[in-house]
């Protein structure tokens, strides 16, 4: 039975002038012309579907790839990278035969349209990326940005996003160990939801996304394909062929975490039995992406009978099947000998698995629909050789003005009482206030390997699950630490420095827990690449990050670019979110944030300068953004990290907390409240109390040193040349934070201010 509405290869060759809705699918004239040139004819509607999604900004990185090359060009020499950029996620050797893969990805726009499902499927997507590498996902983190806390729409978006992240991640059994939440008007109609996942495997267990070996089977498994997430494809189904009844399908995908949980266990069992040649998850661009990428990276060809794909909605057209972003699906390449064993594992977990094609050496991706040829294209042209743009770049017209108006004249607190009031205001700022209303909706205990979770400086996971005797590693248990950071205000003031600041803070956070930073992932959230001033922000940030990674000796392992984050013509604050992975030889040696040792001495490490550009103080007290962000000194960051790591290993410190937004004052408050311990602070002699308390100079941390270790610790700082100042002492019995000569504030009052901001906003 021939389908009169089916656009076959034969029909495409016969009807070269048939009009096609490439513009509606987001393709430019010259891109469409290039497809015709590649194929030597007009594309079929299925081929047009494939090229339009594969050449989209999201999949092809066409505006960013020319700049992202710097991460490879400037990569530090390293032998820890087992898999570099370009795969689903990079893989890092962390020692003892363990490999770790991690990546962060955005799901910004869906999370604005439908907060719960948008955020949930963001988690689901990044978890599948990690799983695809052969790893067991072991933790997630989230980096979130919303509009003002008191804006009405934040009351819709934030609770939905948080419930979605929790609803999906909790059901997968992945501990949520950290992340960030910031509020700024710039994100009002464009929240950022960046989800990170980390996975662990043995170094010999890495899987790659390639379809090797002619004759091997292409297996689609997991959830059935439905009409969700299709977006533009309905244009093809309706506009081109005048099929009756245009379908309005949801453009945001719908998640089923139970299906993904089962898929994870099923895949891990398949990996353990070594039953796949290659594997790829189905994320953005669904089957289009999986088939073209697997074929392009492998032997080069693939034949697919598309009607074999199991459907949730039997009325789906081939174009829609190709573009569907239905969740919880994977594609594996399996040898014929292993096929029975593969399907047996799927059956055990009640996962649908269907052979839909075969690997070939033809160099062509060919698809049929009930026997008729609907796709015949060279897969590399879709997956790898997409368009590359050198977009115009121009420094924003207002950049100099913003930098010059540095807020030096903003009124500052002048006495102890005013400092005290400022502290309470800063502590209660939405950006710095207690986030437990949010993080208490995430399971941080599951799997039983969470050594540190938010609000600690970094999350930390034990690699060995404690089930095996630890004798063979001398009783120590290796762990990994992760932190994400990014400050849109700093980046707006100076994108080159802003990216380096984000890197420096994530690096410092990891080192603060005692782990050695090893590798970097990133999620670069920017406005429209077609706006030259946004491109300037983007290229400056990429350059800053690449330079920074080289200077710190930590390679970029992969990442994600999210463009078009803007409302009308107003872009968001440029927000590169940087994730740093570190390793610690013995998790029992980790350093916590809380003040807990009575009488321990407090030391401030690093230099404090008068730096208030982009500060939380200027933001929350004056609503002001101007000047330049704090300076970055990456040599200093390395030195500070060394000291923190060595001090942790040698037991010289009982706590450590990095200084960032809100400066020393906020760091002290957090460490006091976390430990329920008071502290007596004596600010360094001759310092301006306001600057000492609230400046956001980087490369600093506050540590508590037991008296017995003071000499060893200070000797180490002296020998290495790290400035340090003794600034006080922990007093467990005191119920105040006492900044001597300035003010005294009860912990109870600080806790009330810190806790109520977010909890009250979303009460009950």
């Amino acid at each position, binding site marked *: 039975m021939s389908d009169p509405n089916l656009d076959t290869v034969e029909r495409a060759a016969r009807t070269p002038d048939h009009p096609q809705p490439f513009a509606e699918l987001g393709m430019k004239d010259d891109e469409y012309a290039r497809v015709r040139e590649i194929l030597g004819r007009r594309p079929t509607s299925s081929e047009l579907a494939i090229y339009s999604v594969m050449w989209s900004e999201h999949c092809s990185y066409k505006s960013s790839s020319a700049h992202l090359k710097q991460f490879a060009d400037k990569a530090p020499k390293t032998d820890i990278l087992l898999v570099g950029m370009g795969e689903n996620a990079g893989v890092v050797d962390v020692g003892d035969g363990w490999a770790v893969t991690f990546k962060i990805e955005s799901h910004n726009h869906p999370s604005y349209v439908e907060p719960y499902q948008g955020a949930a499927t963001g988690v689901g997507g990044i978890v599948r990326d990690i799983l695809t590498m052969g790893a067991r996902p072991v933790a997630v983190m989230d980096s979130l940005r919303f509009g003002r806390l008191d804006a009405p729409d934040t009351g819709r978006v934030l609770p939905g996003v948080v*419930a979605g992240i929790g609803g999906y991640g909790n*059901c997968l059994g992945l501990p949520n160990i950290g992340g960030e939440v910031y509020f700024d008007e710039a994100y009002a109609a464009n929240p950022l939801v960046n989800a990170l996942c980390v996975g662990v495997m043995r170094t010999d267990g890495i899987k790659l996304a390639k379809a090797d070996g002619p004759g091997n089977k292409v297996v689609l498994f997991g959830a059935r394909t439905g009409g969700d997430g299709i977006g533009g494809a309905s244009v093809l189904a309706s506009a081109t062929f005048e099929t009756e009844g245009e379908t309005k399908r949801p453009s945001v995908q719908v998640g089923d975490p*139970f299906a993904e*949980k089962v898929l994870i*266990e099923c895949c891990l069992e398949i990996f353990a039995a070594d039953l796949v040649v290659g594997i790829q998850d189905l994320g953005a661009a669904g089957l289009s992406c999986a088939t073209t990428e697997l074929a392009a990276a492998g032997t080069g060809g693939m034949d697919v009978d598309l009607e074999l794909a199991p459907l949730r909605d039997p009325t789906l057209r081939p174009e829609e099947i190709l573009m569907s972003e239905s969740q919880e699906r994977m594609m594996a390449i399996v040898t014929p000998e292993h096929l029975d064993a593969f399907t047996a594992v799927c059956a055990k977990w009640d996962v649908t698995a269907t052979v839909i094609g075969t690997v070939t050496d033809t160099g062509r991706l060919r698809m049929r629909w009930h026997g008729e040829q609907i796709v015949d294209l060279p897969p590399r042209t879709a997956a790898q050789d997409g368009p590359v743009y050198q977009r115009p770049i121009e420094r924003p017209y207002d950049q100099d003005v913003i930098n010059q108006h540095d807020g030096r004249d903003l009124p500052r607190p002048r006495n102890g009482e005013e400092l005290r009031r400022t502290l309470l205001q800063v502590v209660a700022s939405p950006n710095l206030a207690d986030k437990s209303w949010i993080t208490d909706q995430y399971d941080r205990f*599951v799997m039983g390997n969470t050594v540190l979770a938010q609000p600690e400086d970094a999350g930390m996971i034990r690699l060995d699950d404690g*089930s095996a005797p630890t004798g063979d590693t001398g009783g120590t248990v290796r762990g990994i630490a992760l932190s994400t950071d990014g400050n849109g205000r700093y980046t707006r003031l100076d994108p080159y420095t802003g990216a380096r600041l984000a890197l420096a803070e994530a690096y410092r956070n990891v080192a603060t827990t005692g782990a050695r930073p090893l590798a970097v992932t990133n999620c670069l959230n920017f406005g429209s690449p077609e706006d030259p001033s946004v491109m300037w922000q983007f290229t400056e940030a990429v350059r800053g990050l690449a330079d920074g990674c080289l200077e710190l000796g930590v390679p970029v392992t992969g990442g994600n670019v999210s463009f078009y984050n803007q409302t009308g013509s107003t872009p968001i604050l440029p927000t590169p979110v940087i994730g740093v992975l570190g390793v610690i030889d013995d998790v029992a040696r980790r350093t916590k944030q809380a003040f807990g040792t009575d009488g321990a001495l407090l030391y401030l490490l690093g230099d404090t300068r008068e730096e208030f550009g982009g500060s939380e103080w200027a933001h929350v007290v004056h609503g002001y953004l101007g000047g330049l962000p704090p300076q970055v000194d990456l040599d200093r960051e390395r030195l500070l990290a060394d000291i923190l790591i060595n001090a942790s290993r040698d037991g010289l410190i009982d706590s450590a907390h990095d200084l960032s937004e809100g400066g020393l004052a906020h760091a002290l408050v957090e460490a006091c409240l976390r430990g329920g311990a008071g502290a007596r602070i004596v600010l360094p002699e001759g310092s301006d109390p306001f600057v000492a308390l609230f400046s956001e100079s980087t490369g600093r941390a506050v540590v508590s040193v037991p008296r017995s270790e003071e000499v060893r610790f200070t000797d180490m700082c002296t020998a290495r040349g790290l400035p340090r100042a003794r600034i006080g002492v922990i007093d467990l019995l005191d119920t105040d934070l006492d900044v001597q000569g300035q003010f005294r504030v009860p912990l109870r009052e600080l806790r009330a201010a810190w806790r109520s901001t977010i909890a009250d906003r979303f009460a009950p």
Partner: protein
Amino acid sequence: MPPRIGVVTFPGSLDDRDAARAVRFAGAEAVPLWHADTSLHDVEAVILPGGFSYGDYLRAGAIARFSPVMESVIAAANDGLPVLGICNGFQVLCEAHLLPGALQGNAARRFVCKEQLLRIENTATPWTSGYRPGQEVVIPIKNMDGCYVADERTLDELESSGRVVARYLDGNPNGSYRDIAGVCNAAGNVVGLMPHPEHAIDALTGPGTDGLGFFLSFTGVAA
């Protein structure tokens, strides 16, 4: 021979590995039990761990209650086999009518994950005999549907017969009636508990070691 404790894995179980680890910490052998298998492999006790059994898109535990392994668990429990249901396991035990009452959505309609103070009120069960009566412990709680409900008469009866195993202190995290965190059946061998003692067996990864007592209670008796 260490005692053998079965840990059931439903497809959506999440804390099964943690429960097995806690069993080993307490000196027992953890025997994996598969949801589709009716055999209990001669274990001396069974733990139904936390998670989302079959997705729990219907009422939590409503489908798990009909699984092949539960057929055997229900029969054995009625014959006196010690059974501990944690979180989702508690939900399954209520759905299976091994325990009275039901677990509804949290009062705040949000998932809640926190370190929770509890009081152990019944130390006569095989899972709590190692605690002192009235002992206060800190154990994580994490659930969406943790609000324990029952009719007044059942609640009165549970209290008067000492079948409230644990109660929330210092704030009720989910709206449970009479702050009930855990109950047992009339014979005392079946215990359901909403908090997660398996996440409080090691100060490195939990709030402390207060939860280990549930597992040590059993191994102490059996040893």
